[in-house]
């Protein structure tokens, strides 16, 4: 489903990613672990083109990213197939939760208002928040907001989902509720890449674990072997 070959990226003198290579098959969950500053979030952001890189190549969901700046059209096509969930949720503050989920299907896929809303409600149902369809994001708890953010990313029916430390901003109770949703997705066969500090989660849900340190892959393999 995705292949990263010899990815290298530098910020002026600091090498953030150094010859990183990994692959992930369809239906697998890849956990990216490692200390802060090891480059795992940057690697994840390279996967959907939020960051560019200096050398190497990425293929993901049938799209190919080369080094240097990316063409906007390519990125728009790629991102329909690659969803992303952020540490800080980044819900659209001016929209109700259902409109948050329904926006991209309507604007990007051209669904009608009724169709996109129906898809929004169905996904809110799936993350257990249908009752909050008309609430503003600011009135929800952090865990609820992150579940809406997951529903929003799923609304595009992506082939790959990227999670950037999805529970780091949450307390343990809310972490559990969000992790529940992610584990559920993994069982349903969703291909995912998850940046996480939570080794328990990695052990429980990840098919493969990749450990980075100082921009290099230091270990990768089955969760049980690496952790």
């Amino acid at each position: 489903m995705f292949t990263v070959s010899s990815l290298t990226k530098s910020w002026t003198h600091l090498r953030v990613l150094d010859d990183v290579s990994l692959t992930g098959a369809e239906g697998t969950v890849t956990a990216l672990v490692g200390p802060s500053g090891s480059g795992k979030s940057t690697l994840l952001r390279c996967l959907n083109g939020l960051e560019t890189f200096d050398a190497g190549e990425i293929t993901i969901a049938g799209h190919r990213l080369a080094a240097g700046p990316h063409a906007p059209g390519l990125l728009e096509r790629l991102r329909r197939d690659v969803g992303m969930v952020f540490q800080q949720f980044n819900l659209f503050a001016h929209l109700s939760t259902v409109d948050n989920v329904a926006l991209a299907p309507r604007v990007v896929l051209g669904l009608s208002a009724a169709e996109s809303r129906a898809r929004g409600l169905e996904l809110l149902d799936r993350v257990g928040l249908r009752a909050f369809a008309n609430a503003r994001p600011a009135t929800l708890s952090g865990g609820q907001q992150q579940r809406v953010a997951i529903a929003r990313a799923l609304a595009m029916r992506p082939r790959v989902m990227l999670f950037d430390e999805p529970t780091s901003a949450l307390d343990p109770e809310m972490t559990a509720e969000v992790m529940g949703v992610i584990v559920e997705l993994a069982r349903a066969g969703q291909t995912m890449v998850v940046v996480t500090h939570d080794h328990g989660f990695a052990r429980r849900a990840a098919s493969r674990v990749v450990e980075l340190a100082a921009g290099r892959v230091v270990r990768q393999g089955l969760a049980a072997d690496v952790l």
Partner: protein
Amino acid sequence: MKLFRRVLSASMLGAALVSTAAAADLDEVVARGELIWAADQEGGGPHVFPDPANPQRLTGFEVELAALLAEELGVKARFQQGQWDRLPLLLGRAADCVINGIELTPERQRDYHCSRPYFAYSLQLLPRRDGPLDTFHTLASPGPKGRWRVGVLTGSAAESVMRSRTDLEVDVIGYDGTIDSLEQVLTGVLDAAVMDDCIFNFYADRFSRLRTVDRPFAGGFYTILTAGDSPKLSAAIDVAIGRLIADGRLKSLYDRWDLAGRQQMLMLRDAAEIPVARRKSLGELARDTLPLLLKSAGMTVLLSCLAFPLAVCIGLAVAVGRMYGPVWLRPLLTAYVEVLRGTPLMLQLYAIFFLLPKIGLALPALVAAVIGLALNYSAYESEIYRAGLKAVPLGQFEASLSLGLSKWQALRHVLVPQAVRIVMPPVTSDFIALFKDTSVCSAITVIELTKRYSVLALSTGRIVELAVVTALLYLCMSWPLALLSRWVEQRLERPAAGGGMTEG
């Protein structure tokens, strides 16, 4: 500039209020050793204008007349600058008298002390040589483009005479500058101008494509204004004018300025008495002025409601262009903002109204005013929207892009709607500011509420009563505006409810 204008008009109003108590009479003028006379050098020749050979120095037949009068009173003459239609408001505060082609009218007889006449003027109709107006009577029936458009100096006798001629098919348009109307005849915006013959004679070479039509159709006398409560000064000025006429000094002055000195003297000798106007009762005042004030208030509302939405749209587009547009476009838009913010609104209005016709683009005054206001305010709005867009967290943009939205879709559906909500309070306050700034448009002949007040206050002499009514009218309009925008603000606070995809 807004503030400056307001302070200026407030202080002039103050001056008028104080004048009843503080006018300097003859003994004070003599003790001071100076006769302070007020005029508007922008009014131009042949009255008072900067000497072309030395622009630091003023010249004109009234400059010389003021010197002669001061000499008669045994003092020196000192010039005080003022805007022509408001010169009388300087009396008693900044000036002892006004000498600036002030026509003797029944209303002025009522409100000030008017000296005996010192000059006889006549009014001339001034069309283009190649135009269809060849006699004054042509004005009695509509022209090829409907009613004739005739420009006059605001507050002048030419204006009141032309406005009183209901028998003519004429729209009268008032200008703040004496020769603005001549410029507009040249560019074809006006069919003709009407002004004192001596002014046109003075500028005839510069406007050689214009001509006089028929004999002068009306006329009257210039008078020197003094405050009503300085009787000794007024009397002394009358005596001095009498002596200047009697001993031939006034005639030789007019001869030097090529102002038909002999003919002037005959007319001054035979000057008829001008009646004094009656002071209107409050009821009459309300009946005569309220409809006009209300109509002008309508113009104020019209200008704001046309200009502001335009300013907001342009401002938003400029802000988006500066932040997300093509790299080559950004410095151009920055220059656009800096030029429009860094030059006065008045100057921009002048440029649109008086300079564009020179390159063949003559806009009606209302259109020019709306465009001028919209462009000027768009610069301010774009800065507000830029700040608003910057205040939207970067994560909102990244989340939009990650969903497959293009940059422009993200702007349209996520960034701009949020920025609009953030900047609602300053934008509202700008709307109210623009609402009051519409008064600047009087410089290009649009008569809105402030201008109407100024004209009516001067013609009726009821400065205070009309000021109160005008202020109330402004308040009655701006308060609902404030309420409306607060309501919009609150509505935007709420998310799009139910099935409505109403973001943006």
